[in-house]
């Protein structure tokens, strides 16, 4: 029945994370004005991935959980990426 939480996120930490997320969001919106062509997608996805990683790490506490959960989360995203990649072996070469 243990309910241990060794780490309690301070309000400062949470505010800081929010500010970083808002900055990244702003950058993504400004980037569309920059006419990067095909790289717009890549940049948008990279920025989104960074934001997702930050939410997972801090808001969802993964940084302070045991590594098993981190491995599981990483594995899940990796598996999904592989499935999309394999699907594109069909679509890219059709």
């Amino acid at each position: 029945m243990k309910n241990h939480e060794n780490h309690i996120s301070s309000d400062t930490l949470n505010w800081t994370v929010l500010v970083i997320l808002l900055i990244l969001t702003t950058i993504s919106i400004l980037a569309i004005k920059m006419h990067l062509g095909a790289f717009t997608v890549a940049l948008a996805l990279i920025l989104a991935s960074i934001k997702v990683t930050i939410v997972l790490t801090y808001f969802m506490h993964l940084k302070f959980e045991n590594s098993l959960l981190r491995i599981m989360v990483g594995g899940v995203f990796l598996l999904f990426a592989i499935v999309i990649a394999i699907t594109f072996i069909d679509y890219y070469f059709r």
Partner: protein
Amino acid sequence: MTNSSTTEPLNYLNHKTGLWSWLSSTDHKRIGLLYLYSITIFFFAAAILGLLMRIEKIAPGPTIMSAQTYNGMFTIHGIIMVFIVVIPGLAAVFGNIMLPIMIGAKDVAFPKLNLFSWYVYISGAFLGLYSQFANGHSPDTGWTFYVPYSAEASSNVVIALTAAFVLGFASILTGLNFIVTIHRMRAPGMTWFRMPLFPWSLYATAWIQILATPIIGITLLMVIAERTFHIGFFDPALGGDPVLYQHLFWIYSHPAVYVMILPAMGVVTEIFPTFSQKPVFGYVPIVFSSMAIALVGYFVWGHHMFTSGISYESRWFFSFLTFLVAIPSAIKVFNWLSTMYGGSVDLKPPLLFAISFIFLFTIGGFTGLTLGSLATNIQLHNTDFVVAHFHYIIFGGMGFAFFAGIHYWFPKIYGRMYNFRWANISWGFLFAGFNLLYFPLFVIGIQGMPRRYFDYDPKFQTGEVISTIGAFILFIGLIGMVSNLIYHSKRGAIAPANPWHGVTLEWQIPSPPPHENFDEVPVITRDPYVFDHPYTK
């Protein structure tokens, strides 16, 4: 000898009685039995449908039904067998009953969620039945619901799709429960590599249930959106791609077959050491091959689509991966045979079923390679060869493993023993009937007989007739086997706690087990398959 003798100790079967105590029980053993009984009933319903289909096919042209009825039959036969019987199958029955005991736990991690999963399952199963009888006619799309037909057909497709969605949810909840149980509830001292191999197989299976099932969930929702809102993802007239449906469908449905077979392999992996009185040969390779099958099984789905128009590069990729995934399965066969080799082999019914499992599964596996090879696939795709292949794997493999498991754990579950002769004779009918039923389909499949066809060229009739005869023989075997078990569950001789001299934890507690499994939490100090009387003398 009755159950309600006052001298009988309290166990999970008798400590609370009455129907409601069963329907509200969060005891994993009772929930496992709820699954066993519901799955058995649905299995027989779908099997009778199969038998009717075989009667229809005994001659060309209509025999006992119309073409439309036949199409509806193979659809619902597939839906019930795949989603209601085989995917929950071994995990929901033996996983629920045995997993906590085998790891030294009192129950699963989330007992209430476990009961809730059964109710979700039953709801999905009844929705599936409802799709047969609601307004409009029963779906005739095949259990694979391929577009464009499933998007356009006027039958109760949406109800069937919803049923499959709900059933998938039950599968997810069970998988979730088992992963957490295995991570968190193992007895003290039971490290990962001291855990028996049936729990390992359930672990690998549970990951597939979690990560593959949602894809079919969303795909079914997309077809519903197609029918209801003309969303267009799979409709070329709106810009969509019907092959994309096939990709999404098989991204789940191929890993799903590993959900079916991994627990089956786990069950026989328990039976071989017990009936050879010898440790499993190659415990670690079996662990890694189970996880490898689960992982690589995600990357082969396109082998169902070789003739659908996918790119050459992807066909090459999927064929190659399909051959790769056969390797871990072959490793297991080698391990099972090596376990028996040199052991003190006792051919009781569980082992008889387990050995025939190897034979039938191997035929299924080899014919899978024939299908996985690009050139031969063109000839064989959508023929009865495919039908024979998957019935050898699913029925000959998972089905016979299920029969092996129920004959193995029956004395533990009910505290009574069945009749061996009755079991062996039933086995004879099952084995003979099974091969007569399905082997001819390989032959006529190669000769060009398509699957899901109501009618056929008279040149195929010999094979079709043999197959139908086999179906009847198989049915006699099924009835024989089940009646043996049902009769002796109440009237069999009292079984000892360890009739087979097994060494895993379930054999160290009374038969039937007490409500909370263990009086004291066991402490594990050794590997799971240590036999105290070495065979090397």
